């Protein structure tokens, strides 16, 4: 009944695993070092992680080269799929991680970074995300997803605060539910198509002329819920603010970028073929989801009193904005997604890093959260450079040209316009106006209010050279993004187009 599996080593194409394996290897190396000699300084692990991420990036660039020459590479029992979007997403993942990891080198000692396991887990997580995006196979996606998520829960908890445990538990529980939904959704798809590979499923459904449309929709409902959680789509977004608030600012920034791009890529693979096949249900659902996510989270962000929570809601909103790409489904839109996210990652990491810089060890009396707006009051007078940087990131997030995110927004709205989604384009544009309010609020506090003495010595308390470098880098990219947009766009479009999206 079952055929013996018979594959040649060449067709296995183990090389496709290289990027992930590098990350895993890095994690193992860290664990080994720790085993050999404990109590080493965190800077060592930071550098090792960076090194392996660099290697990872190198291999990805190699793959990019291959992709441009030979097109998509498939390997390892046909479960690995190194197409353009996989490569792009992995590059964003790795670069985002590389920006994040130096944030561990703070001047204050934070518990979590003293564990070598932290860095190992971090690298495992990256491998997980890489698996997730570089596959067409629902099983591997699930494995990647869970690898990454489990590592992430732990990383959050390692921050070792009351709030971070709470955040981890919440995130974990909801994640478990999402995993269940994902599994059930996959099951339904498997039941109607007999395959766990997305393009297979698509082919079967198309040949079948979607006769089982009802079941497809049910399956997609589960999948949407699962990825809605991952991408923090309203109403599956509830975890986001709490988890961001609970985790360290640096990790929160990271969470707003890397896991989401992984989620987006899977969502692209999973939903776009249906959008292209003209499944109205999905179009309608996505339309609603995009609009509601963007708008509602913006509205909630308006009323936040903590900057980190505000940024959490803002990240939700940005995710909703980018979700539109999946609804629109054109090459332009999908390229826009990557462009947006690439630019977003710098800006957002920059702004979270700014929060990280202002991290206090102990809260002041009466201070209910880590980063209330009041903390930044009058910052222009006490820390002018810091205030200018932060303002820069806020303006970029608000979509003020010529800062990084504007170009992403421009291209995304352009994509909406050229696909006839006029109303959507307008809603996207107007949401930027709502969003501008809460970004401005921070600027108002920083530039237009008087400093509150109690907070004075918390500025730059946590600053170190590597943090400043990261922020500086993010700022430079944010300001001069205008020069990067064209090359980025060309590359992205090429990759996306050649992957068939």
């Amino acid at each position, binding site marked *: 009944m079952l055929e013996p599996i018979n594959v040649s080593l060449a067709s296995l194409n183990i090389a496709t695993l290289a990027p992930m394996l590098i990350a895993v290897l890095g994690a193992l190396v860290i664990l080994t070092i720790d085993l050999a000699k404990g109590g080493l300084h965190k800077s060592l692990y930071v550098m090792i992680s960076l090194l392996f991420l660099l290697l990872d990036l190198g291999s990805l660039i190699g793959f990019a080269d291959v992709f441009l020459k030979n097109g998509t590479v498939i390997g390892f029992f046909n479960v690995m799929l190194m197409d353009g979007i996989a490569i792009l997403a992995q590059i964003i993942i790795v670069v985002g991680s590389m920006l994040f990891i130096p944030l561990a080198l703070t001047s204050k000692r934070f518990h979590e970074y003293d564990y070598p396991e932290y860095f190992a887990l971090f690298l495992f997580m990256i491998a997980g995300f890489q698996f997730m995006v570089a596959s067409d196979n629902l099983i591997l996606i699930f494995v990647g997803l869970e690898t990454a998520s489990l590592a992430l829960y732990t990383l959050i908890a390692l921050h070792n605060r009351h709030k971070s445990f709470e955040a981890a*538990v*919440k995130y974990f*529980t*909801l994640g478990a*539910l*999402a995993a269940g*939904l994902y599994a059930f959704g996959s099951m339904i798809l498997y039941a109607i198509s007999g395959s766990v590979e997305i393009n297979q499923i698509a082919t079967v459904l198309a040949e079948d002329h979607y006769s089982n*449309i*009802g079941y497809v*929709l*049910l399956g*997609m*409902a*589960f999948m*949407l*819920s699962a990825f*809605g*959680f991952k991408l923090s789509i309203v*109403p*599956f977004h*509830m*975890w986001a*603010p*709490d988890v961001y608030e609970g985790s360290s600012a640096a990790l929160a920034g990271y969470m707003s970028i890397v896991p989401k791009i992984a989620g987006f890529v899977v969502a692209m693979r999973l939903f776009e073929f249906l959008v292209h096949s003209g499944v*109205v*249900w999905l179009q*309608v*659902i996505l339309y609603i989801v995009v609009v509601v996510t963007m708008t*509602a989270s913006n*509205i*909630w*962000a*308006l*009323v936040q009193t903590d900057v980190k929570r505000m940024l959490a809601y803002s990240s939700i909103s940005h995710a909703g904005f980018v979700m539109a790409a999946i609804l629109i489904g054109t090459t332009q839109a999908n390229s826009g997604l990557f462009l947006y996210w690439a630019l977003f990652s710098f800006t957002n990491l920059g702004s979270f890093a700014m929060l990280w810089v202002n991290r206090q060890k102990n809260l002041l009396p009466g201070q209910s959260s880590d980063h209330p707006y009041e903390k930044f009051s009058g910052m222009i007078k006490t820390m002018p450079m810091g205030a200018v940087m932060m303002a820069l990131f806020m303006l970029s997030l608000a979509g003020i040209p010529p800062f990084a995110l504007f170009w992403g927004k421009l291209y995304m709205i352009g994509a909406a316009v050229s696909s006839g989604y006029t109303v959507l384009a307008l809603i996207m544009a107007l949401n930027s106006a*709502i969003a501008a*309010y809460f970004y401005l609020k921070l600027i108002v506090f920083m530039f237009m209010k008087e400093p509150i003495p109690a907070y004075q010595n918390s500025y730059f308390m946590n600053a170190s050279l590597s943090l400043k470098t990261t922020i500086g880098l993010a700022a430079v990219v944010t300001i001069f993004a205008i020069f990067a947009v064209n090359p980025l766009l060309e590359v992205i479009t090429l990759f996306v187009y050649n992957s068939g999206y």
Partner: protein
Amino acid sequence: MELYLYIALFSPLVGSLFAAIFGASPKTSITGYVTSALLFTSFVSSAILLNYVMGGHTVHVEMMTWMATGDLYIPFGFVVDQVSVVMMMVVTIVSTVVHVYSIGYMDHDKGFNRFFSWLSAFVFSMMVLVMSDNFAGLFIGWEGVGLCSWGLIGFWYQKDSATWAANEAFIMNRIADLGMLIGIFLIYWNIGSIQYDVVFAEVGKLPIDVITWIGIFLFIGAMGKSAQFPLHTWLADAMEGPTPVSALIHAATMVTAGVYLVVRSNPIYDLIPNVGLFIASLGAFVALFAASMALVNRDMKRIIAYSTLSQLGYMFVAAGLGAYWVALFHLMAHAFFKALLFLGAGNVMHAMHDELDPFKMGGLRKVMKGTFIMMTLASVALAGIYPFAGFFSKDLILEVGFVEHHYVIYTVLLLTAGLTAFYSFRLVALIFHGEDRYKLFGIHPHEAYKFMLVAMSPLLVLAIIAGSFKMTYYQLVTNLLPSTQYHVHSEATYWIMTIGTQLFVMLAIAFAYKKYANWNSVPDGSSAMENRFCYKLLWNQYYIPKFYEEVFSKPYLELSKIAWKQIDLKIVDAMVDTIANVIYKTGENTRDIQDGNLSTMLRWMVFGLVVLLALAVAFTVGYNAVGA
């Protein structure tokens, strides 16, 4: 000759700027001397130009481009022709006199320098007005005199009434200026130019209704500047300004600009006799209307102002009936004797420490002989007694009315002539005759400076002899204006009319003397006459200022406040804020969806799933229904 033109035009400006340099500094007599000298220079240049123009030439220069865009081309062009040279002479003579006079009159005023700056600026504007060769240039002068009039009426800016009157004058004039502007637009879009020569050559080719509209709008402009009903109220209030200003601006020159405009635009008005008739009728009405208000007024300057208004009515009658040269002639003659009258009134005011009520004067002829003589003669001229200037110009207008068969107008004007004589001599009688009522108020009047009287003397001479220029003048201006002669056909009628009018006027004078020459008390509003309806009506200026106040000013202010507080803040702005607030409040009210409770989060996730599933089912049913 161009040089003289520029000298005539710009020397007042130079004077004005010179005085302006000292504007904020304490009094320096030099400003008065310099400006007067420059004015005299201007007068001399004008005289030279007059001589030149009498030789049958005209001077036309284009100094530079002002505005040029699209097809529009407006230069700073100036023309000295038979009409403008007459105006130039009038303006420069009167203003020179007034300047010199003012050196004395404003002697003790803190704003001496400022006064001369404004006054010379006014003369410059007036020169621009009369010399311009196009409507836009005219408009420059038009608004310029308005500005200077504003500055001079409100010269004593500490006085609330003065600044109020200044603003009123400016705003009223603006209303009319809008009409004028529209007239200019109409001309431009129909003819493509606003140069006089082009416009007057082309205007005949336009459809009659367009010409009519042009005529009407231009006349609206004229109505404002010449204070014709219903835009007349500002003129009486403008008497708040220093008296030389009243003499120069609100009697001799600026207010006649409207007449000048109609005269200048005679090729247009010739084509639209209906509008002309309207102008004439309005003029006649205003003549009577203003004269009636002058009858009871107790403010010396206002009486003269109403008289000015009334005389402007005369001029418009002439202009409206096509007798442009007559209008211009009356304008000229009137400028002389009315300026004289005002300056005389200024002397009286000085003597009386700014007391204006003639009932509080009386018997001043004893202390102010010179002024007495001048004012009496000016009043005689105003009344139109032979052989004074007024006779030649005013009677001519009556004749025009008669000859053109507008008997109603004629009658009205005749009646007005009587009234004019009455109120003029009522004033003279009250001021100079009768008991020395001023003593009740502890005033010790004195005659004005000698040189002021000397300065006034040219006007006196002109007020007496101006009539003798009539034929020279006629020959001069009819080069440009229609040369219709207005002769009553039968000799007998002519004589009856003339002598009749003279007798009528003299009777009025006699009546005024009889009634007022021996006046011995200051009315306190209790006499029977003062309580009569007619008296009250006239005393309150037909309640028109009150009417304007109640119907326009106050409601406008109220409306403005409503516009601001109710509409702008409570509707327009509130709407914007409401949108913002609704968005913000939505956030406040819904943020508790995220209540931090894990169970809630889980439920929301399941809820989301259920909704999606429900939609999936619903759509599937829908698909199947469509499929089936």
